[in-house]
């Protein structure tokens, strides 16, 4: 719809909270990947990560239906994901001592296997080992960019910082990590 000849602003999934079912589906499409990766970083288990993300979107949909106004969609989704992951970890802590699922049992969904999951966990741990050498704020930018696969603009929205700050943090982080990787190679 045009008002006074001005074209409507296109819906921006990272910024605008969806108002329609179609927009909500686009939101899921765009951010299910980064959110699953984020949840996997926190929970270390793909099944739990996907369950958590599903819970995030269901809660988000209820909010949309309730007419809730959200100013920064992506930051809101990440906050919800963080809360859901914290709940899962808390539940796990409470359930400690109960029999766990056998580690070699294949995970039904998507035909993924324990081997797949182990490989991904190894990736997370390898990145974490490197990122751990960075200051906290730079490390968080690297995680969101490298592991979650967000763009600088999206990272800025999640962390509530200007894009220029995110870029400079990322650049400083890369320069530091380059030195770390080079020195590790020299030691070998």
């Amino acid at each position: 719809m045009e008002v006074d000849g001005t074209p409507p602003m296109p819906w921006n999934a990272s910024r605008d909270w969806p108002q329609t079912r179609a927009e909500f589906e686009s939101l899921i499409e765009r951010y299910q990947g980064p959110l699953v990766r984020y949840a996997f970083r926190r929970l270390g288990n793909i099944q739990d990560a996907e369950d958590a993300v599903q819970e995030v979107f269901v809660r988000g949909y209820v909010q949309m239906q309730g007419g809730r106004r959200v100013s920064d969609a992506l930051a809101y989704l990440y906050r919800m994901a963080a809360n859901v992951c914290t709940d899962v970890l808390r539940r796990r802590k409470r359930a400690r001592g109960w029999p766990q699922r056998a580690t070699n049992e294949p995970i039904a969904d998507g035909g993924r296997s324990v081997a797949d999951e182990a490989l991904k966990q190894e990736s997370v741990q390898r990145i974490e080992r490197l990122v751990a050498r960075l200051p906290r704020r730079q490390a968080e930018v690297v995680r969101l960019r490298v592991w979650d696969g967000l763009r600088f603009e999206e990272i800025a929205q999640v962390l509530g910082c200007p894009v220029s700050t995110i870029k400079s943090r990322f650049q400083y982080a890369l320069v530091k990590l380059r030195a770390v990787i080079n020195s590790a190679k020299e030691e070998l």
Partner: protein
Amino acid sequence: MTCTEFQKRVVDLLDAAPQPVTDLRDRALRDHIRVCGACAALYGELQKTLAALEPDVRLEASPRLKGRTLNKIDNLPPAIGAKRNPWRRLWKPALAAAATLLIVFLVLHSRPGKPPVAFADVVRNLAVFRPYLYDEEVKYGKKKPELFAHQFIMSPTIRRSEFPDGRVIIFDLATGDELYLWPDQKKATKHCYPNLPPASHLSISETVNSCGRPEFLGTKRMEGKKCSVFRSSDGTNTIWVDNQSQLPVRREVIHLQDGRIVQGGRTVIESHFKFDIEIDPARFSLEPPADYDFSGTVTHEDKSRSRQDNDSRPFQPYSCLDEWRGEDGKTESSIRRYFLSRTIRRDETPDGCVVMQDLGTGSYLELWPNKKSAAKHVCRNYDPRGRVNASLDEMFARLTSNGWGPKNIGTKTIDGKNCTGFHATDFVNNDTIVWVDSQTNLPVRIEITQIKLKRTLIQSDFQVDIDTDPARFSLEPPPDYEYKVVEYDFK
């Protein structure tokens, strides 16, 4: 594009999903890489670092996740999926408002009503004097109260105070005489204050009466008794009155500073009152006990006149270095002082400030020679009584103030001079040691330890041959100085 610009913006090329290179700036970055080897190498290094960080296998959401999520959304119970009632958003503010109203209601209705004890009855009960005792404590701010003395009031003018350090003072307000007793040492001294200005009354009845019509604050248990609590209209006196006996149980008096209550100020607490106690007149006698070593009577100056007017002895101008040392022996402050007379003094502080004081008028002049600036402080409502320079005469007076005079504590060499030491504890239990040059009979070092404050004042480097040019002690700012006049109130 310069190399510096490139280095600042190279990170744009490392975004997660770079936009198609339509942007002129990105194109400029890529153009620069083509022509600058160093920047191309930098970009290559950063790319390699990023590649080293990239996960071996990128985790993607299951293709079924979206469908599963939408399916769950479609199957949500209608109550949850339905549009929220907008009034639901108001429940929190409404609850908060209701809670506030409830608190206001409770506060208004819990205000104390009629006191179980009429304050006028308390005043009436105390109108006829009855001997009593109480404990007097002092506290500063929120610090723990410290016992000052056990007080025994025999009559509206005679009081016996027993201090925690063992001293006993019997005081007669009518004559201005004080008897100091040290029961453990069997020693006694009498102090006489002729023409003592009218002092405050000793009787609690006067104090209670002075509260006028105090505000009733409510009831509270105190010392195991159910009490009514009253506060004087100026807020300085709080009195707990036993509902049964209608006599005071506790009193707290806040001492004002500059006419107002200040944080950390002094509060005197009177508690554990006992009325109608049995009185042995011998315990309140101002005559020293027969078996005590009595030093005699020390007559203090007429306090109705200024101390400088009282003292006609000649004054020897002198200078000394004053140092205050704390409990750990470290110097807290030092100051060079020049005494021109009993009232005029010049102080020079290590930071370059010079202060001239006139204790006769209460005025003083601060000078900052490095800034050529000055401030003249003029005192309003000044009372010169009791204000006198801590001169050598005063120092020596301390040695005899306990009535027995000082003890010779031997000799020692100080600053190359053979000195004799004298020690005395004054009547307020401060220790004074004076080291006197055996040849000139002039002081070389004076140490005064304020036991209660755990501080020691050390006076040394005495000089009697000082420049007494009145200009050095003038309270008028030098003509080339910028200055301001500040008025302050002595009270």
